[in-house]
Structures are given as C-alpha cells and as structure tokens.
C-alpha cells in the first residue's frame, strides 16, 4: 500500500513563496499528473515528495509513514529525471543495478532483476554500453528501467519525455503508460504538456502560482474546469470567454444573445470551448479575422463584440477573413465563471 498524502505543504525560497499550503492525496497505484506552466511549483512539489527539497511547512506521508524528514533513500521512492541522469561512468547494466547494489542485493538476483527490467524496457541489447553511446530515447529507457528495477512503492517522474523529439515522445508515452500500469506502482508525473497529462493520468492536478487549482480526472478537468485558469490552460485552443449580464431568473445576455445560466445577480463570464461551436441560423455574431486550415479542422479566430473568440469548425466549410458567422454554442457545454473569484459557477 503506497498512497501518498500531502498535508499543508508550503515552500519558501527566501522571500519567494513557491508553494502555498498544498493538500493532495494520491491513491495506491494511481497515476497522478502534476500539470502547469513553468514556475508553477510542480517540480518543487515533486522534489519535496522525493526528499530533494525540504518543505518549509507541512507533512508528507507515503503509505503510513511520515517521510518529510527522511532522506530520499529512506522513502521507498524511485525517480526519473528530466535529463535522465544516467551515470556516464557506468554501463547500462550497472546503471540499472545501481540501486540494487546499494541495497546489497545478492549478485545473482541483481542480474536477474536487471535483465528482466531491461527486457521490459526493450534495452536488453544495450546492457554493455555506456551512456555516451546511447541516443536520447535509449537513455530515457535506461532511466526508467533503473527506477523500475528498484520495485519502488512510488515512482516520481519529472518531465521525463520533454527532451525527446515529438515522434519518440508519442511512442514512449504509450509505452510508459503500459509499463507503469503493469508494475502497479503509484506514480506522480510532472509535465507542462497537457496532451501528455490527458493521455497518461488517472487524475490531473492543475497547478498555478504555487497552488493546486483543480485535481480531477482528465475528462473532468477538460469538461468542467473548476477555475478560469484551468479553462484557459487546458484545451488547444483554450476556452473562449465573453462577459455576460443577468436578466434575472437565470437568464443571461451574452453578445446580444440570451442563454440559460446560474440563478445569481452577480456579473459572470460566459465560457465555451472552440470545438463546441457550430454554424447555425441563431447564435453569436462573429467576424472572421484569421482562418487557419489545420487539416482535420478549420480554426477560425474571430471578433465577437470586440473580444477575440475562436471556433474549431468543419474543414469542409469555406470561411474567408471578413465573413460574418453565426455560431451556436452547444447548450450543455456552456460554463460560467465568476470574474471576481475566478471560480466556476454552476
């Protein structure tokens, strides 16, 4: 059992507050992704869990042990680093065996474990090589194998795919997902790439300015962003926002159109994903400004009452800059945000 519990963890670097009182539970065998832009504190949080940073406040629990004052080696974790950190003076075999040797494991067992892990990561033919003779992708595999060989309770990964080229990243992503599911290890994975997060995660924790803004399943984060930041960060292109004014009784006026919404009197923001718009007789009046044919879709950037507004349309449509479109939002996909608190309003 290796659930992780993070209680009120805060981290300050001098006057800079990197993390504000983080609370997070990760279930046993769960794949948790920490997602956010650079500088949001996701790597700091991961390093606190690993024991490479000490929290200024708060507690970290792994299983039923409080670990925040333990050294990394006493935490039952393994870690994969962004730049792989494959030891250049050791062969691939000795790299994978490194942790096992430190644990004074029997020699025959080490060989067996290394060979099995290498096979799992498809690097059994590289065992005699040194890191200098490996490609980036191969180094990545060694780094993952080295972590898996430890059979850790928790595996921590810090942007492990970000240094690979696009095609290799796609391949490794799928492979990682399979291997980790099989190993039944709890995983925490840091990335700034939302597609990676969506594809890998059981749950995503979206982080912003040292706080977790939303922790939920990928589809939940996508469909029901808990805050305006999540809505504007997830999705490519991100959600559209328009100011809305209340008519009372849950009736809202948005760019001259009336929509059903929450029964509140405060001014709200109307939000809709670009892919949830379609041309219709009735809808928002939008002037096309830039038209980008993307193959599968047509991305149109328009003007709605002076605000920038994007729509992902069928690629069969012919749209030219200057055209006036009437775009109807899919009613069940409309979301509302309070501009003051930036939180979602149901």
């Amino acid at each position, binding site marked *: 059992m290796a659930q992780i519990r993070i209680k009120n963890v805060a981290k300050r670097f001098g006057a800079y507050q990197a993390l504000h009182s983080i609370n997070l539970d990760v279930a046993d065998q769960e794949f948790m992704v920490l997602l956010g832009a650079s500088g949001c504190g996701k790597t700091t949080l991961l390093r606190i869990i690993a*024991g490479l940073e000490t929290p200024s406040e708060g507690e970290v629990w792994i299983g039923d042990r409080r670990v925040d004052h333990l050294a990394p*080696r006493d935490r039952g974790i*393994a*870690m994969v*680093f962004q730049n792989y*950190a494959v*030891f250049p003076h050791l062969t691939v075999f000795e790299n994978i065996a490194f942790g096992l040797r*430190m644990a004074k494991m029997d020699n025959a067992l080490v060989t067996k474990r290394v060979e099995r892990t290498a096979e799992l990561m498809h690097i059994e033919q590289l065992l005699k090589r040194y890191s200098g003779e490996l490609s980036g992708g191969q180094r990545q595999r060694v780094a993952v194998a080295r972590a898996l060989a430890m059979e850790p309770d928790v595996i921590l990964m810090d942007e492990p795919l970000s240094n690979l080229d696009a095609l290799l990243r796609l391949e490794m992503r799928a492979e990682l997902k399979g291997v980790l599911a099989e190993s039944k290890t709890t995983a925490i994975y840091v990335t700034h790439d939302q597609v990676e997060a969506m594809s890998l995660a059981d749950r995503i924790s979206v982080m912003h300015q040292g706080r977790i803004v939303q922790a939920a399943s990928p589809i939940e984060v996508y469909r029901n962003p808990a805050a305006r930041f999540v809505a504007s960060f997830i999705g490519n292109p991100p959600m559209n926002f328009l100011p809305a004014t209340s008519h009372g009784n849950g009736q809202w006026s948005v760019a001259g159109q009336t929509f059903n919404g929450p029964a509140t009197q405060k001014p709200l923001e109307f939000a809709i994903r670009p892919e949830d718009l379609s041309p219709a007789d009735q809808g928002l009046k939008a002037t096309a400004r830039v038209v980008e044919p993307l193959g599968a879709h047509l991305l149109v950037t328009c003007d709605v009452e002076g605000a920038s507004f994007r729509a992902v349309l069928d690629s069969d449509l012919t749209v030219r800059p200057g055209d006036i479109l009437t775009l109807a939002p899919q009613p069940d996909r409309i979301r509302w945000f309070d501009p003051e608190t930036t939180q979602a309003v149901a």
Partner: protein
Amino acid sequence: MTAVTPDVAHADVRKSGRFLFRAAIVFLCAWVLVPIYFLLINTLSSPETVNAFPKSFIPEFDMGSLTFFANFAGMLTALKNSVIVACLTMVLSIAFGAPAGYALSRFDFRGKELFRVLILLTRAFPLPLLALPLAVLFIRTGLDDTLLGLALVHTTLAIPFAVLITFSLFSGIPIELEEAAWTLGCTRFTAFTKVVLPLIAPGIAASAIFAFVISWNEVFAAAVLTIQNRTLPAFLLQSLGTSPLHLKFAGGFILVVPALVFIFAVRKYLFAMWGIANR
C-alpha cells in the same frame, strides 16, 4: 579581362595573408621553444663546452654537466626537498580546496560571496611577501626551516587555484546525477564516492598537478623560510652568485623538465578553469 583582375588580386592578398598568419604562428612557437633548446644544449654539454666560446647550436650529448650537478654538495638533497614540499602542497591544497570547491558549486549559503572574495583576494596579493612574518612565527612554533612549514606557505599560494579548479570541475557534473544516486539508496557521502569522485578523478589529478607546479617553481618564500633544508630553486638562487655556469644550466634544466611534462598533462583543464573563474 579587367573584370578578372580584382579577383586574382584578392586571391593573392588572401594567400599572402594566410602565409603571414602561418609565419607568425611558427615564429611564436620558435620564440617559446628556442630558448628552451639553448638550455638543453648547455645541459647536455660538458662543463668545458658550456664555458667555451663560440657555442655549438647542436648538443654534444655529454653527461658532464648533469653529473656535476648530481655530485654537487647538497644539490640532490635540495631536489628531494623540492619533491617533498611539492607533494605536501599538492595533498594539502586539494584536501583544503576541494571541499570548498564542492560547497561553492553545490550550495547557496549565506556568506558565499564573502567567501569567494576571500579566495579571490588571496589571488590578488603578492603572497610570497607573507613569508616574512611567517618566518618569525615559524621560529616560535618550531616550524622554521622545515619542509612542512614551507609546504603550508605554498599551500596558501595553491589554494585559490585548487578551489577554482575543483569548483569548475564540480560545476561540470550535473547535480541530477547526485540526486539520482540519493533516490537510489545513496547517502550524500556514498553518492559522492560512487558517482562524483569517479567522474572528476582526472580533473582532481590535474588540479593536484597544478599545485605541485606552483610549489615546485616558488623561489622567494622557499629562500626566506628554509636555511638548511633548501629546495632546489632556493638552493640555485642562493648559489647563483658563486656557482659555475654549467651548474646553473643543469639546475635550470632540472627545474624545467617536470613543468613541461605537467603542463602537458593538465593542458585540457587550464582553459576550463579560467573560463569558470571569470564568470
């Protein structure tokens, strides 16, 4: 035809430019090497030839001068003293300098800048001068005229270099390698011995050699601090006024040889070290 001429002229200029460039490089190499060659000729000549005139520009490969050098009273002891002091300096400066280099490359701590200034200051001082008061101090502590006492002063000379070179060496090793080792079951210490040390061992050797050369070459402090236990440079300096030419040249040659070998051994690190040191 007129259209072609400028091109030809241009090619000529470039050709002669390249010739000048090469000639300058060859000249500067000769400028460094020829004086050393002259010393070599004198060393490999009999004492009579050394004092004769005119000089041959080809060595006669006579061991007379070197034999004279080896048999000169106190010379071999001085040579031995030089080696001992240089080795002590090497060990001391790495033992003191390397931990500091590691601290500078790995940690941000209060007072780091002050510490760096202290290290840089030592480099900006005419250090041999400090041998004067130390001579008095050493008499009080019984370190006077000892090789250890001199090695301690030479260590002061070598320490800024030891700190700077090891700092640049440690900075060249990604901290992630150490962190990876920690997560794989190492303590700070075992991570250092199993991962960092194997990677920087050649560099540490280079900076040790650098310390050796600094001590090997130092004259002033050696002359001030030793009386009976002269090092080779101090011995040569002391006897400059009285010793025959062939002794001077053989002694000078013995001084130069290890330096040549050592500079060759550490040449790769010379530049890395100053690159970092200037940031």
